[in-house]
C-alpha cells in the first residue's frame, strides 16, 4: 500500500503541533499567551495546507476509508478558520474567569482534529473514532470552569447524554456492518440493493446519534443547559464548529452509502427538520438568557439546514452547505457582540442587559441590528439568502409542506429577534459598558458583520465555491 503523505499532511501537522504545544506548555512557565498565539499560527498554517490540496479532486486513501475531495476540503477550511476566530476572541474572557490555561487551546485543537477526521471519513470506524475524539475534548471544555457549579453540571450532562447517543450510534453501526458485511461507505452502498428491515433500523440509530450531536429536535434536550452553563467562549465553540462537522457527516452518511434507500430515510429527516424549525422558533420566545436564546435559535437553524439535506438532490446539499456557512458567520458575529457586554471584568448575558444599548454604544447596536435582521432572515442580509437557497431547493423537489412550515416558523422566529432589537433601541438605557476590547474581538466582529451586510452585492463568491461540491 502506497500512501501519498501529502494528502493527510494537514491532519499529521495538526497532531504534531498539538504534542509540541503541550510540551512547550508543560515545561515553560507562564506560557499561556504564547500557546494561544502559537495555536492561532498553527491554525493559519493548517488552513494553508488544506488549501494546497484543493485541486486534487476525489481521492481515497487507507483502503478507501478516508476521502479527500472538494467537499471535505471546504468543510475543513471552514472549521479551521472559524476556530481561529473563536481562539482570538476568547482570551480576554478566559482571563476574567481565571481559567486562562494552556489546556484550553490544546483541547480545542484536539477537538478540531477529531472533526477533520469526521469530515473526511468514508468508513464507520474512522467516523466513530473522529466523533469520539471531538466529543471527549468537548466534555472537558464544557466543564472547563470547574469551580462553577453550572459549568460542571453542563459538562456532566453533556457527557452522560452524549455517551448514551454514542452507544445508540455504535449499535446502528453494528447493525449496518452485520447486514452489509462492511464498514466502508462504498462497499455498503454496493451491498444495499435488497433492503432488509434491520438496515433501516441501523440507519435510524445512527441518525439519532448524529441528530444528538447537532442538537436537532427531539434530541435537543441537552443544548440549552449546556450552552448556558459552559463558559461563553466554549458555548461559542459548541454553537459553531461541531455543527459543521456533524452536518458534513450527515450529508456524507446519507448520500454515499444509503442514497439507494432514500425512501427509508427521507421521511425521518423531514420530520426532524420540521420539528426543529417549529420548536426552535416557539421555545426561544420566553427566554431571558441570551445564551439559552442562542441555543434555541441554533436548534431552529439546524432544522433549516436539514431541510436542504432532506431533498435528496445535489442542489439541496449545496444549499445546506451554504446555510451552515452563513449560520457560522452570523453566530460568530452574535457571540462577538456578547463578549462586548463587559463592565469591570464582568460579562453580562441576559436580554435585559441589552436594554437601551443604542444610547451609549451606537456602533455595537448597529451591528447587533444587522446580525439579528440576518438571523431572522430579512433581506438583504446574508441570512435571507441562506434561507432562500434552502427553500428554492426544497420547492424544486416539490416538497411544499416542508417549505410552508419553514416559512411559517421563520415568521415566528422573527418575533424574538425583533423583540431584542426593540429592547436595544426603545427601552430605557443602563450604565455604559467597557469599550477597551481586544483587537481580535473587534476585527472578528467587523469582518463577520461586513460579510453579512455586503453579501448581497456579490453572492456568487460563495456560490461558485460551493457549486463545485458534488458527492453523489
Amino acid at each position, binding site marked *: 500500500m502506497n500512501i501519498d503523505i501529502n494528502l*493527510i499532511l494537514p491532519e499529521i501537522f495538526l*497532531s504534531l503541533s498539538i*504534542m509540541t504545544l503541550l510540551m512547550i506548555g508543560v515545561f515553560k512557565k507562564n506560557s499561556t499567551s504564547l500557546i494561544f498565539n502559537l495555536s492561532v499560527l498553527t491554525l493559519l498554517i493548517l488552513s494553508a495546507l488544506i488549501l494546497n490540496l484543493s485541486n486534487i479532486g476525489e481521492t481515497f486513501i*487507507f483502503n478507501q476509508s478516508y476521502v479527500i475531495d472538494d467537499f471535505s476540503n471546504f468543510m475543513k477550511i471552514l472549521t479551521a478558520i472559524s476556530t481561529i476566530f473563536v481562539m482570538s476572541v476568547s482570551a480576554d474572557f478566559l482571563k476574567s474567569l481565571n481559567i486562562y490555561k494552556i*489546556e484550553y487551546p*490544546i483541547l480545542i485543537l484536539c477537538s478540531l482534529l477529531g472533526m477533520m477526521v469526521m469530515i473526511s471519513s468514508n468508513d464507520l470506524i474512522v467516523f466513530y*473514532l473522529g466523533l469520539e*475524539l471531538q466529543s*471527549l475534548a468537548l466534555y472537558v471544555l464544557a466543564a472547563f470552569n470547574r469551580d462553577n457549579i453550572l459549568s460542571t453540571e453542563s459538562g456532566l450532562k453533556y457527557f452522560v447524554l452524549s455517551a448514551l447517543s454514542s452507544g445508540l450510534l455504535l449499535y446502528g453501526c453494528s447493525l449496518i456492518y452485520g447486514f452489509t458485511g462492511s464498514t466502508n461507505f462504498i462497499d455498503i452502498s454496493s451491498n444495499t440493493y435488497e433492503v432488509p428491515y434491520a438496515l433501516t433500523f441501523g440507519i435510524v440509530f445512527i441518525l439519532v446519534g448524529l441528530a444528538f450531536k447537532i442538537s436537532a429536535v427531539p434530541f435537543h434536550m441537552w443544548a440549552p443547559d449546556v450552552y448556558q452553563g459552559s463558559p461563553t467562549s466554549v458555548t461559542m465553540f459548541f454553537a459553531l464548529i461541531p455543527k459543521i462537522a456533524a452536518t458534513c457527516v450527515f450529508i456524507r452518511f446519507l448520500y454515499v452509502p444509503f442514497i439507494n434507500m432514500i425512501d427509508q430515510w427521507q421521511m425521518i429527516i423531514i420530520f426532524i427538520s420540521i420539528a426543529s424549525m417549529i420548536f426552535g422558533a416557539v421555545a426561544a420566545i420566553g427566554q431571558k438568557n441570551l445564551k439559552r436564546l442562542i441555543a434555541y435559535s441554533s436548534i431552529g437553524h439546524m432544522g433549516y439546514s436539514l431541510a436542504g439535506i432532506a431533498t435528496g438532490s445535489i442542489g439541496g446539499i449545496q444549499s445546506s452547505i451554504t446555510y451552515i456557512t452563513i449560520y457560522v458567520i452570523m453566530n460568530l458575529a452574535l457571540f462577538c457582540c456578547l463578549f462586548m457586554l463587559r463592565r469591570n471584568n464582568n460579562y453580562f448575558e441576559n436580554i435585559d442587559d441589552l436594554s437601551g444599548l443604542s444610547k451609549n454604544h451606537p456602533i455595537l447596536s448597529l451591528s447587533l441590528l444587522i446580525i439579528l435582521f440576518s438571523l431572522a432572515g430579512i433581506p438583504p442580509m446574508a441570512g435571507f439568502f441562506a434561507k432562500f437557497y434552502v427553500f428554492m431547493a426544497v420547492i424544486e423537489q416539490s416538497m411544499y409542506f416542508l417549505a410552508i412550515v419553514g416559512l411559517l416558523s421563520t415568521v415566528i422566529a422573527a418575533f424574538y429577534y425583533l423583540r431584542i432589537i426593540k429592547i436595544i433601541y426603545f427601552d430605557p438605557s443602563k450604565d455604559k459598558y467597557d469599550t477597551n476590547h481586544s483587537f481580535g474581538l473587534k476585527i472578528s466582529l467587523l469582518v463577520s458583520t461586513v460579510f453579512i451586510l455586503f453579501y448581497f452585492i456579490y453572492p456568487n463568491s460563495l456560490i461558485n465555491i460551493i457549486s463545485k461540491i458534488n458527492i453523489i
Partner: protein
Amino acid sequence: MIAHAIFFYIFSFIAIVSAIMVTVSKNTVHSVFFLILDFISISCLFIMIGAEFLGMIMLIVYVGAVAVLFLFVVMMLNVAHQKNIFFKSNQGSKHIPIGLFVSLIIFFELIIVVGGWKYKPELNNISSLETTSISNTHSIGYVLYTDYIHLFQLSGMILLVAMIGAIILTYRKREGLKRQSYFSQISREKIDGVDLVDVEKNKGIKIDV
C-alpha cells in the same frame, strides 16, 4: 506431550483453586490477590494453546490495570477487615439458595453452549484454521501498523485527550504544602544553618528562631 499435559493441569488447578478462593476468602485484600493469581494462570493457559497475544493482553490489562485498580479501591475503602456476615450469621442466610439456583442455571447454559458447538454438523476442525505459520501478534501487527495505522494513531490521540482532561479537571495546586527540594537541601552550607555563639556563664542565651 506429557510435559504439556502436566503444565496444563498445574495451571488449571491453580486457576480453579484461586477462583474458588476469591469467593470464599474473608479478607477482601486476599480475594484481590487470588484474583490476580487467577488471571495469571489463565493467561499462562492462553499462552499454552498458542494465543500468546491474548495471554499478554490479559497480563497487561487485567493484572496490570484492572486488578491493581481493585486493590486500590479495596485499600482506600478499608473494607479489608469488615467481617463477612454472610457466612457467620446464625439464622442461616437467605441468599445461598438463590445463589445456588443462579449458578446452576449458568452451569447448564454453559453445557448447552459447549454441547451445541461441539455437535454442530458443519463444525470446522480447528487445525484447518491454522493456515499460516506466523504468530498471532505478528498477524495483528501486520494489519494494525499498515492498513489500520490511522485508526491506531487516532486511538492514541483519544487517550491523550482523556489524560489531559482528567488532569485539567482534577488537578489542584495546593497552597502551604511543604515539598522536598533536593537542590536547596544539597546546596545548604554550614553558614546557613549553624550559628556559633559564645555563651556567658550564668546568663544563658536567647535564641531567635
